[in-house]
């Protein structure tokens, strides 16, 4: 929501990190200015010119050496103590809590499974405002990294190694996130959004997501539903109420309710959806979604169908 998310936190966890970061930035700036000043003064004062004094042959001074060893050591000890506090504040222990949400990194999209309600969605994670949510983070293929800078730390999604993290937002809003670990060709377009809503809105969203959409029986949308079944879309994508149960690609049950397409590569508009189905590479080059060489008419029908999945 802001220009410099790491310095504009929207959760207590992110705030504890950004406070420490600002403090460290000040210390860093002070030390840098000190070294730059020392060097500059030396150049100005001791530069070789007419009448300059001969260099004094001095070999060192143990007291000074001890001072500039001990000084930084003390400073680092202080920083370490503050760091330990921040570690616990920004990444609280799990303490036997059951995760509410499972996020799975795929090449190159995010799957989000709400473990208590059964909602399954992709690239758009909804959370209730003000309450920390425990996420169980996994990977389906290579290493990814879940990062929503305004809400807190990043953590890797490692195949064969389950991770947990807390996520919380103090204010309603849409927060940008991204995969931060290099994961292959479309690493750049493995983005996501986190939508923080008041509890009532969040509950309503969950209800809507759980509803089974009616399958169109007439018109272009019905034609699209048939294409979905017959043109192999169904081999990778699930839609509740149809025979599609595969979760190789994102679950499409409520695709039309989402804001972004192809993990952030485009906004979710009918025009972009058309382009995406017609030629996925034009939106997200080298994506795993194949180009099925659909005709314009077929693509229009498919878009019509998918747009009914509110």
């Amino acid at each position, binding site marked *: 929501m802001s220009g410099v998310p790491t310095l504009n936190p929207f959760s207590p966890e992110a705030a504890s990190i950004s406070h*420490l970061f600002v403090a460290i930035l000040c210390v860093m700036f002070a030390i840098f200015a000190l*070294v730059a000043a020392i*060097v500059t003064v030396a150049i100005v004062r*001791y530069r070789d010119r007419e009448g300059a004094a001969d260099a004094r042959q001095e070999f060192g001074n143990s007291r000074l050496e001890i001072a500039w060893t001990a000084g930084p050591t003390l400073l*680092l000890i202080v920083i370490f103590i503050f760091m330990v506090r921040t570690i616990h504040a920004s*990444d609280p222990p799990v303490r036997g809590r059951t995760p509410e949400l499972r996020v799975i990194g795929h090449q190159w999209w995010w799957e989000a499974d709400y473990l208590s309600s059964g909602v399954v969605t992709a690239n758009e994670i909804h959370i209730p405002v003000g309450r920390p949510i425990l996420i169980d983070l996994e990977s389906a293929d290579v290493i990814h990294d879940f990062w929503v800078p305004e809400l807190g730390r990043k*953590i890797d999604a490692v*195949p*064969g190694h389950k991770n947990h993290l807390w996520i919380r937002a103090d204010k309603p809003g849409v927060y940008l996130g991204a995969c931060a*670990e290099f994961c292959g060709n479309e690493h750049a377009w493995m983005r996501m959004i986190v939508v923080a809503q008041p509890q009532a809105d969040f509950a309503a969203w969950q209800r809507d997501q759980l509803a089974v959409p009616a399958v169109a029986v007439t018109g272009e949308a019905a034609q699209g539903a048939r294409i979905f079944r017959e043109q192999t879309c169904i081999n990778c994508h699930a839609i509740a109420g149809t025979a599609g149960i595969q979760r190789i690609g994102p679950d499409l049950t409520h695709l039309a309710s989402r804001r972004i397409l192809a993990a952030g590569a485009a906004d979710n508009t009918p025009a972009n959806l058309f382009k995406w189905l017609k030629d996925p590479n034009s939106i997200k080059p080298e994506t795993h979604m194949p180009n099925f060489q659909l005709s314009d008419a077929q693509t229009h029908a498919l878009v019509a169908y998918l747009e009914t999945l509110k």
Partner: protein
Amino acid sequence: MSGLAVSGRIGEPSAAAARRGLLAWVASVDHKQIGIMYMLSALLFFAIGGFEALLIRIQLAVPNNHFLSPDTFNQIFTMHGTTMIFLVVMPMLAGMSIYAVPLMIGARDVAFPRLNAMSFWIQLFGGILLYFSFVAGGAPNAGWFSYAPLSEPAFSISNGVTYWVLALTCLGIGSIAGAINMIVTIVTLRVRGQTIRRLPLFVWMTLVNSFLIIMALPVLNGALVMLLIDRLLNAHVFSPAFGGSALLWQHYFWGFGHPEVYIMILPAFGIISEVIPVFSGKPIYGYGFVAASTVAIAFLSFTVWAHHMFAVGLGHMFVMFFSFTSMAIAIPTGVKIFNWSATLYHGRIRLTTSMMFALGFIVMFTMGGLTGVSFAVAPIDWQLTDTYYLVAHFHYVLFGGTALAIFAGIYYWFPKMTGRMLNERIGRWHFWLTLIGFNLTFFLMHPLGMMGMPRRVFTYPDLPGWMILNMISTVGAFVLLASVLLFLWNIQMSLASGAAAGDNPWDAWTLEWATTSPPPPENFALVPPVHGRRPLWDLKHPDRADERAWVEG
């Protein structure tokens, strides 16, 4: 004393008497020729790696760019990183050590001249093998770190990563052989009177660095062989889907990779520790502390590898331990910076190009060191790792640090190697263009990372402020290109018509300046007596010799 006689003759760089032309170089086992060949190969790969950097910056100049495809971009940034680390910085520093160390210790050559030649040629072969991948189905595309399982055959179908493994294995063998050679040379071939405590600091740091190499590189080579077996024989050491471990690769890789960072900076520290005293007209301040802090850094460098893995999710105790050791390594590094700065005081500073690069090094490297401390603070790492802030950080260390030190070293030793001075006027332009271009390119990457831009992305969304910062960085990269062209022009011009150097143009005091420029094949007609750390100073100022100054207080 005859070693001090100034000679007006400018000969061939080490006239390998019998052979002429190219064969005199290819068949050479002379450390001076091999050192120069190392440096020339590094320069060649620097041009290639720099070209790759320009491609990256062009692609990222504007959001949603289609200049490079994602896979091409991944190949380019993988090759840029691998090239700059293994084919530019390491051979450049190795070349400088191989050239200068025997001269600085008054030896005729390294201990094992044939092994020396093998190190170079296998190094060059590794570089060619790596680049051959472009025509053999695609360059490696899993990053210079090749994290599993992305580097496993299931996710990386071209042969690129296999070439990467084979090339790095060759480079590793070359580096280890070179390091063994250096250790034996420094331990056994020093001239009489040059005790360990009188070693020039560049030689001392090369010695410590060589121990780092023989301990760190085998870790990488072992892991590379495991990855090779995974790729070619379908083993699953690093693939979790079949019971392997993706994290094991990271432990191996950074077990090598963090000492590697110091392998790339210690010899640079050595260059700075020679250049700053000479052009300040004073001995290094706190010799013992500078030398000892090098050893401390070398030991600590083996205890900090997992700070590259803070985001992996290995638990708080683990994070705190590695955070502690990573902060600790800042202390001996700080000691060095203070001692170099103190050397300037009460000196008589000659602002030669070499010295300007060395002073630029102190300030720019400090910046890289400080952002490094911010990464040792684990929660900050959790926010900023794998963003452009990290890219800024390590370029301040490796360009602002190592590269500036290398330029300082080249301007310092070029007269010795060739018998001719580099042009100081072009040199000053080169320095300022480098400094400006470097900061334009990399400084704004700090805020970019803080704004949330991940690294290794082939493009990025048009978020507020991202484009302008990226555009400025791209402009900076072209300023750097101009500075490099100026540098190459300076070399070419000076080789043809530079002023004659004489034996000791800088009024320096280590032994390499006691012989002719360039030195004869046997290096010295006569090595001057060594009674202290600055033998040529002692000769020139018998009444104020260092050892006497020490004793008399």
